[in-house]
């Protein structure tokens, strides 16, 4: 089984576990049922990816500066 298939199985199993848990404490079940939780996930994911992308760009800029210094010597 390749890595991707394993990951998808992992996700699936976890979702299964979720539906099987007892309903005692109050949780945000409605948000999950109507799928609005994915809106939140998408928003936070966009921010995380943006920050990571910014970090990559800073990394590349520093790399360029280092290269310029190396070439100067």
């Amino acid at each position, binding site marked *: 089984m390749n890595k991707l298939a394993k990951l998808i199985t992992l996700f699936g199993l*976890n979702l299964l576990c979720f539906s099987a848990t007892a309903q005692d404490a109050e949780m945000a079940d409605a948000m999950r049922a109507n799928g609005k939780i994915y809106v939140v996930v998408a928003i936070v*994911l966009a921010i995380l990816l943006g920050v990571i992308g910014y*970090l990559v760009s800073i990394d590349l800029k520093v790399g360029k500066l280092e290269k310029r210094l190396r070439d100067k010597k």
Partner: protein
Amino acid sequence: MKKNWWKILSAALLVYTLLGGLLFAVPRLNIVNETIRALYFHVPMWFAMVFMFIASTYYAILYLRKPVITYDTYSISFATVGLVLGLLGIVTGMIWANYTWGSPWHGDPKQNGAAIALLVYFAYFILRGSITNQEQKARLSAAYNVFAFAAMIPLIFIIPRMTSSMHPGSDGNPGFNTYDLDNKMRLVFYPAVVGWILMGTWIATLLIRIELVKEKIEELEDEQTR
């Protein structure tokens, strides 16, 4: 690209943490309810902070053994990232406490200990800022760094466990056993810890590289003026 595999791993782990942390099943407990998910995001801040401070102290000791200025650059950079992670840990903890304990600052031993530990590290930066001579700054702050680390360990890990604390994972309890009854949470929590440690290290290496570039430019300028 080969040298950067761990940066990609860190990004992948954090994306996984976010998806798993918001979507996977969690134990259904009263009072905490969905806020149990804060564990995935709040606790890794502290784990990563401790790792950054260990790295910082390691380079401080190296500097005290052999005064190479690069060690000082490493030490300050890791401490900076550690402090930022610690502040995020305090802020996220306060948001959580406001909804589960009833107020942002509850004077809980773990909360107070963490705050004092951060203040001890604040003093490290104040000490550095007050000395202009570079060698003196590096030597004194390296010695203080070792002290700060030695003060942080009991403040965060020992004292909160010796008294009664409302903080989950305290009370002489070595882990989060009460929370991780079914081990499902570990599946997200441990990748989150590794992801944040790698991300913190990545940011620290950027700070280090920028500082080293600055030092090299200054060297070149010195040569030109001579």
